[in-house]
Structures are given as structure tokens and as C-alpha cells.
């Protein structure tokens, strides 16, 4: 019995060292919580490097924020609560996916709007080319028909045989 509890303690002591090989000393023991912490971290911008998430960044502040995220996750907060906690301090800019709000609608809708504008532009241009650009030609007169047949060497032609 004593041996077993001693082995368990030893195992518990070794655990952080093992996971630390991946990300030194930072990972949570519970894989589900760790997965959530990583998911949250991937959405948080490292303010120092700006175009990296805190999950990617080696900046000391990113490490501090990763630790903060893990503490909050461990305390039983939802992903949204943890994100709100950080956004309250660093502003919306800290999120890599900006929130959908009245003042960000244009940001979210811009790709769709540009696509629609492009499709409309092409459609209008194509229509103009087929209708106004190439008017239907009037039918050939008998005179013209005869001249044409002569030119292409039809049986009506007076070629020297």
C-alpha cells in the first residue's frame, strides 16, 4: 500500500516534467482543460508581436497571458468568460476574430459586398457587350447574296471552265 502511494506521488511529480517537454511547465494536467486553453489562446493576439496568437508567440507577455488563461480555465470559467476577461483589459484588438457588432458589420460584410459588386459589374459588362455592342445585322439583299456566291465560287459563278 505504501509502495503504491509512493509510486503515485512519483508519477504525479514526473507528470509536469513530461508535459513540460512540449511547452515548458505551462500545460494543464487535464487534457480537456488544456485543449480549451489552447483553443482560447489561439484566438488571443500577442500584443507585442501583433500578428501572432499568444499560443504561437515566444514573447514573455504571451507566456504570462497563457498562464492567466490556464488559471481561469482551471477555475471553471467558460471560454467566453476567459476571453471577456482579457478583452476587458486589452480591448477588442486582442481578439484575432473580431466580434460581430454594429460597428464591425462592415468589416465582416466587406468580402461578401465586394464579391457581389464584382459579380454585378461583370454581369452588367457582359450584357452591354451582347446587346449594345453587337447589333443584329440586317439580312442580305438578293444582290448581295449573288455577289457572295460568286466570291465563294458557287455554281452561279461565270468561271472559265
Amino acid at each position, binding site marked *: 500500500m505504501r509502495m503504491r502511494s509512493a509510486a503515485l506521488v512519483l508519477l504525479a511529480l514526473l507528470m509536469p516534467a513530461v508535459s513540460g517537454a512540449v511547452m515548458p511547465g505551462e500545460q494543464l494536467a487535464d487534457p480537456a482543460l488544456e485543449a480549451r486553453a489552447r483553443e482560447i489562446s489561439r484566438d488571443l493576439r500577442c*500584443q507585442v508581436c501583433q500578428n501572432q496568437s499568444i499560443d504561437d508567440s515566444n514573447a514573455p*507577455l504571451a507566456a*504570462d497571458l497563457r498562464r492567466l488563461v490556464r488559471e481561469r480555465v482551471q477555475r471553471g470559467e467558460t471560454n467566453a468568460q476567459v476571453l471577456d476577461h482579457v478583452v476587458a*483589459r486589452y480591448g477588442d484588438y486582442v481578439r484575432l476574430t473580431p466580434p460581430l457588432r454594429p460597428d464591425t458589420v462592415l468589416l465582416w460584410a466587406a468580402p461578401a459586398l465586394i464579391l457581389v459588386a464584382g459579380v454585378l459589374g461583370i454581369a452588367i459588362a457582359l450584357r452591354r457587350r451582347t446587346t449594345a455592342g453587337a447589333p443584329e445585322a440586317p439580312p442580305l439583299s438578293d444582290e448581295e447574296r449573288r455577289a457572295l456566291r460568286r466570291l465563294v465560287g458557287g455554281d452561279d459563278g461565270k468561271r472559265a471552265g
Partner: protein
Amino acid sequence: MLRRLLFALPLLGFAAVAVWFLHGLGRDPAAIPSALIDKPVPEFRLPPLEGSGKPALAAQDLRGRVALVNFYASWCAPCRIEHPLLMRIAAEKRVALYGIAYKDGMAESRRFLAQLGDPYAAIGWDGDGRVAIDWGVYGVPETFVVDRAGRIRHRHVGPLSDDTMAKVIVPMIARLERE
């Protein structure tokens, strides 16, 4: 005439975008607006910098007087650049100037102040940088202007210069003192 204008449209569009980008070139990408403007100072109580002879710093100390709160570190090069300016601000006694030692060893921080002078009325020691996160700090130096009600009114990222002091900070202090 209208048709010709239509041909100029892409060119005009390009010109508009070019002007916008040109304007963007002059902007500082590091200057992210603070989320805490006009919000009360976050609740904190920091231990003193032992051996500095200065009192500790807590949120309630930032009430009653317009104050500057300066996050600094001995390992931060720009902090050395702005330090002489902080010494002058302290000598003028115009505002209360408080320091928060960000992620620094006590001994290193003491040595830094012994070398360059200690301009702070009180110093909070934020060894793990947790309080700095509550303030939305992402690098040192950062300086906050706090009004008499204890609200954050302005954040300056990077070393303070005579220019920002004269154009932004000093006029702001004068305005906040009249409030």
C-alpha cells in the same frame, strides 16, 4: 462625357486607396488604444520595492490628485531614455508620479534607481506582471494619466519625450486639474 468618367473610375479608386495607405505609413502600428480609457484604475495592491525607502502602491492611492503612473523595468532600454524626463517631472512637483516595477528583481530595480535617480512618490513592485496585465500593459515603458477620481484618462506607450509632454500630457494634466 459620362463614359469617359467611367473609365477614370478605377484610377480614382486606386488614388483613394493609395492616399489611405500613404496616411497609414505615418501611423505607429504599436499604438493600440487602451481599453481602459475613462474607466477606474483596476483594483490592485502591490508590495513596496524593499530598500527603496518609498511606500507601496495600491489603487486607492491614485485618488484625490492627478497622477502619472509609470511602468518601468531595469532591463528595459527605453526606460533609461525617458528616465531623465521623469526626474524633471518629479522635480517640478506638478503631478504625483508613481512607479510600478514590471517583472523585475528587487535588487535590479533598486540598482536602476540608485544609478539614475528615483523620481517616484511611491513604488509598487509587480514581480510577476499580473497587475500590469490588469492595466492592459503590453510592454515597458508605459505611462498612464489618472484623474482625481481615480480614472484612467490617457495611456502613453513607449518612452515619454519632451514633445509628448508639452503637446499631450501637460495640457491634459492642466485640464484634469480644473475638472
